[in-house]
């Protein structure tokens, strides 16, 4: 999608490069989960901003996904690392960041899907296929309090990150990237 940088292999929208040969191992994938509207947009906004901030990194592919299963469209390998950024609710004040290992995901969040293959199922397939053995993390960003309720007559606060939140997110992603 449009926010991608440093795409590899046959990733959609990518300049095609050879996915199999001559690349350093441990490529990192940073995917924002969400949609163009509502509080769920937060994951996309975050990776759009991160894609700009990290555009010089050549060891990183950044993309928006509207379903976790779409990560399989990318030429991911067992040597790679995966960082997912998604909106979350009920984990603190708006803008709160939390980093989860797959096993630490709250069950309700991992199973939250109206469309077939939720995050937990996708991660189970990732594990079964032996992908991303270099590590998987999920960063949750707390949505604005009323975002997502969609009640008639009720204003929804536009999701977004203020400067301090963006700085924390940037630091968390850099820490993950440089941890190797």
């Amino acid at each position, binding site marked *: 999608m449009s926010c991608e940088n440093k795409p590899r292999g046959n990733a959609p929208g990518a300049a095609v490069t050879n996915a199999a040969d001559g690349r350093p191992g441990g490529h990192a994938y940073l995917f924002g989960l969400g949609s163009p509207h509502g509080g769920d947009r937060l994951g996309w906004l975050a990776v759009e901003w991160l894609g700009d901030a990290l555009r010089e990194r050549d060891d990183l592919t950044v993309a928006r996904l*509207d379903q976790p*299963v779409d990560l399989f*469209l990318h030429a991911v390998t067992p040597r790679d690392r995966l960082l997912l950024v998604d909106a979350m609710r009920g984990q603190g004040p708006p803008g709160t960041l939390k980093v989860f290992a797959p096993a630490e995901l709250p069950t309700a969040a991992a199973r939250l899907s*109206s469309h077939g293959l939720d995050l937990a*199922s996708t991660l189970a397939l990732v594990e079964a296929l032996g992908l991303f053995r270099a590590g998987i993390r999920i960063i949750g960003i707390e949505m604005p309090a009323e975002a997502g309720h969609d009640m008639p007559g009720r204003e929804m606060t536009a999701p977004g990150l203020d400067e301090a939140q963006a700085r924390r997110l940037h630091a968390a992603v850099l820490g993950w990237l440089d941890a190797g």
Partner: protein
Amino acid sequence: MSHDTRTGEIHVPILARVEGEGALDIRIAAGRIEALTLRIFEPPRLFEKLLEGRSTQDVIDSVARICGICPVAYQMSAVTALESILGVTPSPWVEAMRRVMYCGEWLQSHSLHIHLLAAPDFLGFESAPAMARDYPDEVRRGLRLQGLGNEIIRTFGGRSVHPVGICPGGFFHAPDTAAIEALRQHLAEGLEEARELITWVAGLPLPEDDQAFVSVSLRHDHDYPITEGRIVSDQGLDIAPADFEQHFREFQVPHSTALHAQLDGHPYLVGPLARLNNNLDRLPEALRQLLDDLGVRFPSRNMFHSIVARAVEMHVALAEALRLTEDYDPAAEPHAEAPARAGGGVGCTEAPRGILWHRYALDDQARVVEARIVPPTSQNQARMEEDLAASLTRFGLERDDDALRLHGEMVIRNYDPCISCATHFLDFRVLRENDLRKNVLRK
């Protein structure tokens, strides 16, 4: 534990490969199925009532929420009905691009069902991840094709989950040429994978289970039916979608919150197998030849050939999307004007799981006065019960409860029922004659 001392009730706490909440109850007496009910107990969602008073655009955006797997189908049946009332004729560009978008939905829905829901049954795995360990290349191919379907929907609808691109008269905007070119590159790669998929699926150890049933689908003058056509059956039915209610009757049964449906008083089948049975001559010659070479004969009476039909339709979807986007030129006007107008109209399209029929009545502000929606899974309920009774009997009612339960689940999953998109749950109970006797004695 011996058969005689085993309890007559079995609970399956989670069936992870059926969309929605349901239960199966079977009572066996004297070696025969005395009663069989596929219970659907999720609360009625009352969507038709919720649509009353809504604008046409609200309808298109709202019905997408009925199903997370087939939102495009709901939108297409709705917009077809609404445009017939408003007197809007979509341009050839709009008709072609809607068909492309619909192909995306077939692709993602069918691929999900083949690889994550149905194939583990036939290969003896308890789940898709378990199968993925032994069939990693096949599962990754399936996930790529599913993702490609999502990419098509996103290209036209802004997002693949509950897309928002469709409006009366067309689309809100036309994808630019660069987006379509990128998409076409992936479609071309997917086409060969889809051909390999057909071969793989045809080689699965599918049960032999021929049955008599009526196949109902759309039929188009020259295309494989997706967005339009007449409603036909392999028993001679050939009607306009507007005449649906003269032949098909929906009714309530005590054990299901979803209405059952019958065609002239009998159960019938909708979905990929019915579509292919009725439209084999609408397949490209190369695909018909491939099926011949693989030894899978259509029309087929074996319900388990549904998985082959799905794989074939994935190839059809990819080939159609490529054909229709060749020489793509974004429309300067991606939608026609749609003036408010009162009246009534119907729309019927081929959702991944079968014909999806909508009827609306609008007032002079083009707001909904009445809505009726007949989804494919509710149409298939009676056929599923009929199939379960026949298939379990053929399988052998003397087998133990676990074996019967697993076979029953496989039969149900084979229909890819979309009972709901929220939770996955099936309770299974079998009550045998001995248990009945014991219960009576206890009392």
